[in-house]
């Protein structure tokens, strides 16, 4: 029977792609392994290889077609002895979908990590204007990936001591394409591919920073920074103190942090709490595209070691970034992302996507949530949190990381210390479950926090 070739998914996050080019014609013989077509996604151009032998029967999707959904039949392959007349028989090749998945709690990952393709990171409700951005400033729509690249490029133009090093940052243009174009603009002296030696190159970066350079060290993901964490903490964070203030290091460690999609326990950890414990480090975990840009620029200029935690799922999201010659967001300042009077929701990074959606849900039920985006985890903007809690009397924290000794626990402790008399209910913490990240789709959903959990927590502290 003729075999249907389906539009393949080429990455964990791909939903559709453009059929750029057919490399085989109808009637041509195909061997397993032959490249038959080229597909473009937002990240790259990829080749489609045949896995079956035969003759290319019919091209169902002509080249140049944009936005072809994954699993759409794009061509048929005829086996030996079959002719075009057999084409009608080609089966629809259904993909059986797991049963248990349907039984899994309604949302979880469905709203949050739906990557790349659609949905700007902006919530349904208009976000509050950022006090950092002068009224009337022209805004440009950018992906977070582009905002990060622009931040680095601007700082590298401004200061010849700034350079970037890491795995695949130069020729490959970044494992997640964040450093796209930097090698072309700044050359191999300042955009440096390293071997896979995290402990080594992190130490090299710290040493170079001690000598006065300003490295940006990219970790392909922060999971791999665990190889390097000794240099980050023992060398980068503590040297200024140990040298009685003589020798500091201005260095940024950046890369994707936390869960992506289905990459399992060793590739899905959130390190915000780990680094936030260390005196001498600053820790930034932005959510909006503008903050990604303005805070990365601030991090590069900061004379201290800064941990800059990004999120792979957000890289493809778009947001409004001010068109200013030099847009820098101060480190250590939280932002009220949404104003409200009934309950305070404190979050940061990916947690904000749950928090903002939950606030929309709560509004429908007459609960006005105030959402505080911490943006910087250390130094933490206690004042903004406390002012909000004094107003609402109730608080919920939201994070994808684990609960024990988590950032939410720290927020809760500060609220207790500084606003105990204002609290009408104990602070509630919504977090990732207390398990390593499982691979199975249904378990992964359960392991992450959900909008429903945030809504439930906000209602619980409101006694509703």
């Amino acid at each position, binding site marked *: 029977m003729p075999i249907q070739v389906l539009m393949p998914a080429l990455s964990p996050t791909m939903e559709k792609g453009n059929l750029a080019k057919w490399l085989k014609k109808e009637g041509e013989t195909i061997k397993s392994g032959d490249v038959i077509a080229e597909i473009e996604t937002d990240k790259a*151009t990829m080749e489609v290889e045949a896995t079956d032998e035969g003759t290319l029967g019919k091209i169902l999707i002509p080249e140049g077609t944009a936005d072809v959904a994954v699993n759409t039949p794009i061509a048929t392959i005829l086996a030996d002895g079959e002719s075009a007349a057999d084409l009608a028989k080609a089966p629809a090749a259904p993909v059986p979908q797991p049963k248990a998945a349907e039984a899994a709690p309604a949302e979880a990952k469905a709203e949050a990590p739906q990557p790349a393709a659609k949905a700007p990171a902006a919530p349904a409700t208009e976000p509050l204007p950022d006090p950092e951005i002068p009224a009337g400033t022209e805004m440009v729509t950018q992906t977070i990936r582009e905002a990060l690249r622009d931040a680095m490029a601007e700082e590298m133009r401004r200061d010849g001591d700034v350079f970037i090093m890491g795995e695949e940052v130069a020729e490959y243009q970044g*494992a997640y394409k964040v450093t796209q174009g930097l090698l072309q603009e700044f050359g191999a002296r300042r955009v440096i591919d390293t071997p896979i030696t995290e402990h080594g190159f992190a130490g090299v970066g710290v040493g170079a920073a001690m000598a006065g350079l300003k490295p940006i060290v990219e970790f392909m993901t922060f999971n791999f920074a665990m190889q390097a964490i000794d240099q980050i903490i023992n060398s980068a964070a503590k040297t200024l103190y140990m040298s009685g203030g003589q020798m500091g290091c201005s260095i940024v460690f950046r890369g994707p942090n936390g869960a992506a999609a289905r990459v399992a326990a060793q590739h899905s950890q959130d390190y915000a709490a780990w680094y936030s414990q260390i005196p001498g480090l600053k820790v930034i975990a932005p959510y909006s595209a503008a903050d990604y840009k303005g805070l990365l620029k601030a991090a590069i200029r900061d004379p201290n070691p800064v941990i800059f935690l990004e999120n792979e799922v957000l890289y493809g999201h778009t947001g409004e970034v001010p068109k200013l010659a030099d847009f820098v967001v101060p480190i250590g300042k939280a932002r009220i992302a949404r104003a409200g009077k009934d309950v305070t929701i404190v979050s940061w990074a990916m947690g904000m996507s749950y928090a903002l959606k939950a606030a929309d849900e709560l509004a429908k039920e007459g609960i006005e949530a105030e959402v505080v985006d911490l943006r910087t985890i250390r130094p933490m903007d206690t004042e903004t949190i406390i002012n909000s809690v004094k107003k609402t009397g109730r608080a919920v924290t939201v994070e994808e990381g684990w609960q024990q000794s988590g950032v939410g626990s720290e927020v809760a402790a500060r609220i207790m210390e500084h606003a105990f008399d204002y609290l009408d209910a104990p602070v509630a913490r919504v977090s990732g479950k207390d398990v390593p990240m499982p691979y199975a789709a249904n378990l992964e959903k359960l392991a992450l926090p959900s909008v429903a959990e945030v809504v439930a927590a906000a209602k619980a502290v409101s006694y509703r």
Partner: protein
Amino acid sequence: MAAPKKSVAKESGQEKAGSPPEFTKEQELKALRDMLLIRRFEEKAGQLYGMGAIGGFCHLYIGQEAVVVGMQMALKPGDEVITGYRDHGHMLACDMEARGVMAELTGRRGGYSRGKGGSMHMFSKEKHFYGGHGIVGAQVSLGTGLAFANRYRGNDNVSVTYFGDGAANQGQVYESFNMAELWKLPVIYVIENNRYAMGTSVSRASAQQDFSKRGASFNIPGKQVDGMDVRAVKAAADEAVAWCRGGNGPMILEMQTYRYRGHSMSDPAKYRTREEVEKVRHDQDPIEQVRNRLLAAGASEQDLKAIDAEVREIVNEAADFAQHDPEPDPAELYTDIYR
């Protein structure tokens, strides 16, 4: 078992000493079958990934089949195997069941890790397969530890520790080398040099590109092996196994091999030309080599087709199982954290 003469094992570097010892017909047939099983399994995994039935990262082993198959032919039950995330081939070579591996790829309860590990994290105590590790280089210390346990217990098992040309630059590799030689641990370090670590070619990442010499400063003997010729792999493996079982400490085998597909499914592979891939496929394909030898020795197309059919049947059955087996019970979320 007698150790090979030190002088033989000691020499590092290219050994272009003609073709390796011939296989018997049975060996050729077994090698063909085992390599085909891996090839067909990986092709199917690639398809299922394209259909969205497999998620996350999926690193295929296509092109490198001769390495694990040849190594495995020299091992005995009880020898341990450990590797990184490009692990499907290693598991099949260790005689783990195709359906259990495939069901793990789709994240179902019948998978080797009951759906909790995925492509990069599978294990089988029964088959002495110790994973399945996602952190580049981590398996090298772990594999050295397996060898430590063998030495501690005084058994004659050997730990076969696989890692890539990229992983060979991690610091813990050298910390492990030192301990392994210092304590004479029975570990074979199999460096699968497929010329690239993600998008970085060996020449762009490695000061010493002859990986067989990577143990030189610790006095660990090493050999470069044609990893596309299963007979050469088996011969080198025999020598290394004898060396390790003989109590002489570790040995390094650099397997010169090639991966045909991208690093993972989402790698556009712009760092090498299509011609480069085509050339290796055409001139050196490990499966074609065996097929051609078998045909030249008088095997019929029919016989070889029968092997392919048998293998396809196993793979199709595995894929079918992997797509219909239910996902793990939600209660599994909280199991296996402690015991």
